[in-house]
């Protein structure tokens, strides 16, 4: 099967600091990849390179076999890569539906003017939430929502553009236990829809319950890349801390 995302020898230096050295990574459609590592291991740097925040110092990125170079996040988004940011990047004062469509509003032309088509946006948002089996209502203000519902809004936003890859940065870091289950369900649904997901997480149970593969970074290098069925939380912990060299 063709890799939807292929990273070859990705290296990133910030001045004299080697944030990443020679990282290779492949991702297939319908695969959920857990990206783990301690703080400063290079997870964020790697994600930002894939999402177009900055280019690698060296190395290549290919999407479905075609090499790409992103100058800004917008280009990565247009190429089918959506990111759910750690803080979700939501506007609390707006409704769920307006947050989903923020920056990509549906408008209706009346003469020379263009007006928001709230009805269309609310309907489409309702469909997205229904697809995600979320109880989030399009007209609710985000301010009044639970952590799980907020996650659903941020995830629904990634589905507007029919992306191929969704990157989720610590989606379960700051929410309650019940809501964690909701978010993990959402990830499984993305997977069933044929998307590739990269999940950054510190939580071992989350990774082992939804991911197909786990990749561990330590001090800028990839020290492990294996199916979750062939490893254990203990081994991964050892790999993260350095107690186990590589696996």
């Amino acid at each position: 099967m063709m890799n939807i995302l292929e990273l070859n020898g990705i290296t990133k230096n910030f001045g004299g600091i080697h944030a990443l050295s020679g990282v290779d990574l492949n991702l297939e459609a319908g695969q959920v990849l857990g990206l783990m590592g301690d703080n400063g291991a290079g997870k964020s740097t790697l994600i930002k390179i894939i999402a177009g925040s900055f280019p690698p110092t060296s190395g290549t990125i290919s999407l479905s076999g075609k090499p790409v170079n992103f100058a800004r996040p917008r280009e990565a988004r247009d190429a089918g890569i959506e990111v759910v940011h750690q803080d979700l990047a939501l506007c609390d004062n707006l409704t769920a539906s307006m947050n989903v469509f923020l920056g990509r509003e549906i408008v209706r032309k009346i003469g020379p003017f263009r007006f928001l088509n709230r009805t269309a946006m609310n309907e489409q948002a309702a469909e997205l939430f229904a697809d995600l089996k979320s109880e989030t209502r399009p007209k609710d203000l985000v301010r009044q929502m639970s952590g799980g519902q907020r996650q659903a809004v941020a995830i629904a936003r990634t589905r507007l553009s029919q992306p191929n890859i969704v990157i989720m940065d610590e989606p379960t870091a700051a929410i309650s236990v019940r809501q964690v289950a909701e978010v993990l369900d959402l990830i499984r649904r993305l997977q069933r829809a044929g998307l590739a997901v990269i999940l950054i997480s510190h939580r071992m149970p989350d990774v082992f319950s939804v991911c197909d593969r786990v990749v561990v970074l330590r001090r800028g290098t990839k020290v492990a890349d294996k199916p979750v069925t062939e490893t254990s939380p203990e081994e991964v912990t050892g790999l993260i801390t350095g107690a186990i060299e590589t696996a």
Partner: protein
Amino acid sequence: MNPHNTTGEMEPDTGTDWFGLAARYAAPIFLVGLVLVFALLQPNFLHPLNLLNVLRQVSISGLIAIGMTFVILTAGIDLSVGSLVALAGLVGAYVFKGGLDNRFAIGAEAVTGNPVIYAVLAAIAVGIIGGALQGLAITRLKVPPFVVTLGGLSVFRGAALLFSGGGPISGFRPEYTWWGQGRIGIVPVPVIMFFLAAAIAHIVLKHTRFGMHVYAVGGNSAASDLNGVNTRRVTFMVYVIVGFCCGLAAFLLSARLNSAEAVAGMGLELDVIAAVVIGGTSLFGGVGSIFGTVVGALLIGVLRNGLVLMNVSSFVQQIVIGLILIAAVAFDQYAASRSRA
């Protein structure tokens, strides 16, 4: 449809939240109460001519408050409006008179000069340029709006004094003063302009992409940016809008007073900001409405008028308005802390 619902959306029905309901309708409730009290204490208050008078008095500051609503929704502020009104009014009057030579000329002597439309456009152009310069300083030089517009307050006032040499430009022909003193039917022209501007601003804020982005930038600027909203352009534009309102208001004010002066609009920022904030727009950005601002402007006008009818000293009026402003913000803070809880 809920008139004071600040983002124009339905909210979930999680039982009857009496506090939330009272908070949302606080300004309209207070306005109605005030009208009832003044009507009981002073029968002349409800006379149609007096009510139209209230409307005429609030129309100038109300017009600027509409522009200020956009600014405050992005969590900004504009302290320079009074000074910009003085400068724009002088430039408009100068253009109408065709120079400073006949600055006091009236009647037949004043017939040289330019059509009124040139004066309006000149005043509005000055307002827009003033707003745009401040918008650039805020978005490009990253100076906080409070500081930029505090500087603007001084700069525009100084420019107005310099331009006019300190003296007024006065004595306009009727086609100019009609815009400030005239009526269509029984409704004063500035009142019509005020409500027209309010209607347009409401549509822009609630029904256009730009309006939605104004709310988004005020709610979470960084998130808006990540989602592809051009936050810099939105922020720049709100200062241009308030500048436009200042230019138009400056023309209407000089027409009403039959005089443009460098000291016009002194302290106007108080009434303008008070109208917006009393109307429920949060100084923290992201929450508020044009409807609220209109109510806030009316509230201040009714209060002033009623106190005058009851022979309360204008010194006391100042104290009352200042206190109500503080109370409105205290209420906003309290409501915000409650909704976060």
